């Protein structure tokens, strides 16, 4: 066992570190610095210690944090569930599967904002597709305005964001499924295992790790999901869909309170780092590392 430090792994990290330090680290450090100031557009800037943080935490931000976690948990769970189901379906060796797989991609490729405009139209009660079809089937005799009330707007924004994330989850899980060698299935088949049994006992356990991997990734992306909410509701009605990133955007960009916005951003990063560290430690306990 060598006592001196092996430089090789660090060298492997150099390209990634270089780009990251250049693009992210300094602006991030600046952001942390800004969070301790009262910077707006004005030229003079004062250091105000933790005042921004106090202000944020005392005035309703904890509610925003809670709402963000709820939104995020719902969205990620749905993405994983629907993505998993999709992957299982697309894994089936039926004619046309290549076409189906390609047809799964568009929500991921289209610029997010455009997709959200379309969802906005679909959610309208008078001229939108969803309410129109529901009324046509007869499940409701009046128009349903999904974006007009807090609860339905919350769900509506979640579903639109889930729509964006499902293709990536499905594609990733599908790729993982396809790397499971056929021998395992055949051995089980010879032993008389039915299809559903094989899916439950072979496929699903073997993609647990990829599922967790994509789950964490999905969680991180979803935490910062901006367009889905901004374009559909701008955080309303009455802050019903205001998550942390919406709040940060409004503060920093809309109202030019860079100092306060920076403090929110720092809080977001700290919370997420804590969250993912905890998750990662749990994974390690489950024996994921060799």
């Amino acid at each position, binding site marked *: 066992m060598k006592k001196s430090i092996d430089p090789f792994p660090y060298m492997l990290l150099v390209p*990634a570190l270089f*780009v990251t330090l250049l*693009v992210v680290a300094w602006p991030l450090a*600046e952001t942390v610095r800004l969070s301790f100031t009262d910077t707006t557009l004005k030229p003079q800037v004062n250091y105000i210690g933790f005042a921004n943080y106090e202000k944020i935490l005392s005035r309703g931000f904890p509610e925003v944090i809670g709402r963000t976690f709820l939104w995020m948990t719902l969205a990620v769970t749905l993405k994983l569930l629907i993505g998993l189901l999709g992957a299982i379906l697309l894994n089936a060796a039926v004619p046309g599967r290549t076409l189906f797989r390609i047809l799964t991609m568009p929500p991921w490729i289209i610029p997010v904002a455009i997709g959200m405009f379309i969802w906005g*139209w679909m959610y309208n009660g008078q*001229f939108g597709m969803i309410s129109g079809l529901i009324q046509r089937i007869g499940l409701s005799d009046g128009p349903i305005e999904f974006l007009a009330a807090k609860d339905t707007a919350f769900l509506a924004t979640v579903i639109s964001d889930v729509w964006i994330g499902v293709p990536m989850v499905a594609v990733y899980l599908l*790729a993982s499924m396809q*790397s499971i060698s056929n021998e395992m299935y055949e051995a089980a088949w010879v032993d008389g295992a039915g299809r559903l049994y094989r899916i439950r006992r072979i496929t699903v356990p073997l993609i647990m790790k990829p599922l967790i991997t994509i789950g964490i990734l999905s969680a*991180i992306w979803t935490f910062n999901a901006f367009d889905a909410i901004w374009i559909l509701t701008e955080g309303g009605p009455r802050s019903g869909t205001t998550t942390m990133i919406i709040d940060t955007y409004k503060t920093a960009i809309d109202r030019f309170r860079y100092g306060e916005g920076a403090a929110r951003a720092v809080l977001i*990063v700290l919370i997420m780092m804590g969250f993912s560290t905890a998750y990662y430690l749990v994974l390690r306990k489950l024996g994921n590392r060799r």
Partner: protein
Amino acid sequence: MINRYKWWEYIAIYAGIAIFLSFILAPFVEAFVVSLRPLDGIFSIPYRFLSEGMSFEAYFSMWESVPLLWLYILNSLFIASSVTLLSLVAVIPAAYAFARFEFKGDNIMLGAFLAINMVSGAVLIIPLYRVMMQLGVLNTYMAMIVPGTAFVIPTGIWLLRSYLMRIPRELEEAAWMDGAGRLYTLRRVILPIAMPGIIVVSITSFITAYAQQFLFALTFNRKIELNPLPTGLYQYFGRNEVLWNELMAASLIGILPVMILYLVLQRYIIAGLTAGAIKQ
């Protein structure tokens, strides 16, 4: 034999796929329908699929409203490709390091990389603008490629790392015992086996870069000839009126290249994955 489905299994599968794809494609059906309508008849109450005056007009007039649309699509493809290639240079060694080696600070660094994805570019935009300005890359492709790469790297590292961790160590150990250097082993032994994973990561990076090029292009670039597609699409937004039909037509056309690319690439994934199937 194992894959011969019974008739009711076929029905169940196709039904499931139909429901799944309905969710995925419903907005695109809406987009397509809107793209066929004239501007003063975009919506109808109550909702109708088919309405009067539908035509493919918008698919032609959209080139006039935004003359450089084709250039924006090409720019998007170029920027996304550059981001993907550059990020691979950073992601592959880094993922290998995290997958195979235990070194001081490895958990913290991995967490730090992931933390980057948690910081939205919108908040960093002003300090980042200054960085770009000081580097002198404003109004060039680099101003969009470099930040794009930085935000794609963490995802790539995370995904590739978990893929690499499933490759048996015996392969490398065999190579080392034969006297191969570590870098050589990475290049010649690991990479070929990791190809499917690398392709998956590349696709992820490419699509992400393609779809999310808005903010950096908007802020760091003034030359409209360099604009990528998402930024270019905003030219359909007038002061008080949006050319929705043309916008939808342009968006649909804009995603076609990537879908074709995926069609081509996904055969490689399947070929790679089944050929070098990794025993679990």
